[in-house]
């Protein structure tokens, strides 16, 4: 009897011991059985030649390694198709869990319909993360919606545009960097005399001409123009005809070579990189491409800002640039999926991610980076341009709540370059679009 009691007690002890050991294992933070498996749909808009694409992939790989419980469904496509995808997914209520976008009118209706997660809580819960961003970064026009409070996209990068130029071709033509519009016209004429295409522009892609138009408009009226147009305080026909006329002047001078409206963006870049064109007004993100081994003009590329108008010196430092891409989350996310998405968002917008992108000369960061990071001198000039700007803003239509305005501006800009419209008609078309959608 005593023997059997002993046996029972010892069995019980063993059971208790096992239970304790197992529950101790259970307490372990790294117990894979306890970590919920999560799948995230992650969508971005990079072309495979974009310098950001490789860094993005590296960040994703690191994230996967650090978070083995998270499976990422990677959906990447070039920006042109991505815009369509985004609109379709908004309409069909199938937005990815985490995705890049440009804020502004493109997602305005989705924000209004509460399809995007409000991110103020993410910042408030992590003050260290909140503190790394540049002053005023959250006030960027693409994040501010006229009648909606809150934050619906985490800033990822800033952009700005300026002139890349071929130093050899400038020397050959005996011209210096132009500081004013008149000097720019002179440079164009002299470059043309040497048989070079002065300025490569991919007029087939509307955004190429629209960027130029917007940069010119800001040098004439300052960046407040965008806001005034969005609030319908001024009309396009009263404020933008001049900027369209300047493009007409350049076109008629032959600055862009023959048939600029049939040149697409890749041909534009090719013309500049093969030394067929002397200048290229473009975004900072292409510095590493122009200085890459595939570029025939490697080491010969310089930078200068958009020349100002001597009659408008007050807008000399009004620059086209500012907040660009943001990361947004689907408002339906909850629990572990939401946590994983926030983690991934921080991997891109946080300090470590931003440093990686800066090292690759792929972005102008949105955070205050105090470490010394070697950046290409060309990229640094773009960074300095934005840092020293008196004021800056993105697309002219950025604050507009009418979603077709950006497309319309691109369409009329191409129409102008293609001689389908005059400067006056281009501006009138913009006002007509507003009238039509009242």
């Amino acid at each position, binding site marked *: 009897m005593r023997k059997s009691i002993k046996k029972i007690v010892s069995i019980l002890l063993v059971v208790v011991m096992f239970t304790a050991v197992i529950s101790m294992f259970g307490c372990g933070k790294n117990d894979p059985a306890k970590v919920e498996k999560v799948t995230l749909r992650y969508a971005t808009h990079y072309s495979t030649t974009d310098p950001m694409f490789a860094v993005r992939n590296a960040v994703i790989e690191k994230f996967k390694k650090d978070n083995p419980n998270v499976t990422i469904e990677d959906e990447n496509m070039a920006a042109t198709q991505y815009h369509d995808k985004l*609109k379709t997914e908004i*309409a069909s*209520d199938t937005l990815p869990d985490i995705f890049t976008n440009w804020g502004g009118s493109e997602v305005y209706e989705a924000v209004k319909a509460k399809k995007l997660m409000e991110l103020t809580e993410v910042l408030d819960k992590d003050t260290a993360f909140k503190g790394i961003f540049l002053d005023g970064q959250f006030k960027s026009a693409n994040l501010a919606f006229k009648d909606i409070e809150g934050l619906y996209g985490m800033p990822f990068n800033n952009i700005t545009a300026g002139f890349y130029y071929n130093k050899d071709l400038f020397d050959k033509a005996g011209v210096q960097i132009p500081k004013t519009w008149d000097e720019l016209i002179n440079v164009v004429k002299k470059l043309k005399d040497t048989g070079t295409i002065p300025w490569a522009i991919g007029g087939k892609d509307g955004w190429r001409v629209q960027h130029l138009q917007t940069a010119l408009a800001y040098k004439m009226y300052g960046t407040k123009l965008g806001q005034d147009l969005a609030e319908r305080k001024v009309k396009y026909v009263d404020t933008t005809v001049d900027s369209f006329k300047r493009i007409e002047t350049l076109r008629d001078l032959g600055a862009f070579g023959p*048939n600029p*409206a049939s*040149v697409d963006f890749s*041909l534009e870049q090719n013309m500049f990189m093969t030394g067929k064109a002397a200048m290229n007004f473009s975004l900072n993100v292409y510095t590493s491409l122009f200085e890459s081994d595939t570029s025939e003009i490697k080491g010969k590329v310089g930078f200068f800002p958009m020349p100002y108008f001597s009659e408008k010196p007050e807008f000399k430092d009004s620059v086209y640039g500012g907040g660009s891409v943001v990361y947004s989350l689907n408002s339906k996310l909850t629990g572990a999926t939401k946590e994983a998405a926030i983690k991934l968002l921080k991997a891109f917008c946080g300090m470590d991610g931003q440093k990686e992108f800066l090292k690759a000369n792929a972005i102008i960061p949105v955070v205050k980076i105090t470490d010394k990071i070697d950046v290409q001198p060309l990229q640094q000039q773009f960074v300095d341009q934005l840092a020293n700007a008196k004021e800056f803003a993105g697309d002219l239509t950025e604050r507009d709540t009418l979603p*077709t305005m950006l497309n319309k501006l691109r*369409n009329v800009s191409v129409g102008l370059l293609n001689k389908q419209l005059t400067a006056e008609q281009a501006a009138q078309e913009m006002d007509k679009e507003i009238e*039509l959608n009242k």
Partner: protein
Amino acid sequence: MIAGSVFHSLLINNSWGQWQMLNFKNSKKIIILFLMPALAFYLCLEIYPAFRGIFLSFYKWKGIGGSEFKFYGLNNYFEVFKDPVFLLSIRNLMRFLIVSLITQLPIALLIGYLLSLGLKGTRFFKITFYLPMILSVTAISLLWKLILAANYGLLNSILTSVGLEGLTKAWLTDPSTSFNSIILINSWIHVGFYMVILLAAILGIPEDIFEALKLDGANGVVVFFKIIIPLVREMIGVCIVLIMTQTMKTFDLIYVLTSGTFGPNDINQVPIGLMYYKSFIGDNFGNGSAISTLVLIFGVTISAIVYMKVFKENTSN
């Protein structure tokens, strides 16, 4: 219950105790059952969206679940007709329809007739003419983009190399050539399809008619105009309807050739492109649906007129 009765209709136990298939051509139940899946797909994917589109055309909706959805009466239609781009797209569509009919139908009929003569190499030509139809429209569009590119395109290179530099153009962006280029590419793609239909119709004409004509000494031209055209008239009617509906639906070809812009500055816009633009870029599904409803009404009306004309005359003949 139905399945059980169908089973009994399909299989019967014959006098030797063996199961054997039954000829069920006359069994309505079975015919209906076999048509059901196709009907279900047709109702769900064609009829329902069409009626839903008509319904949406009377509402103001941004196309986002949860956004305002309010009755808007005929205002979407008024707005669409006020839009100069819509009027331009209608003009373009008319041009597209007329040029497509003028180019595709006679060429398809002529090629079909020539191939029906059984000349040497008929099979090769049949395959060659039909080939563009089986290729992806995107691939074809990219191919033509390369051929017609202003700066490095094949066509301009050929013209330059033969001393016709003055004829080179920016084919896809010059307003005087852009839309015509698109129409001709579309015709090039589809002519093979109509050729096959008309060839089949020509081959269906009884041989003795041709033999009788041969004896009478009729030449090829007479045969073509006096015999072929009247006898394949019904099939020509079918082709007209198919060409028109295909043309009205053309979206992908223009989208790729114009890099998604339908431009420059909307010069290549067609109603279907504008419907997409209004709905997905402009967040205005009401306007987009109004355009699709107008296209639907136009398509149905035109098809009905052509069918009535062709079949009525055939019946009276």
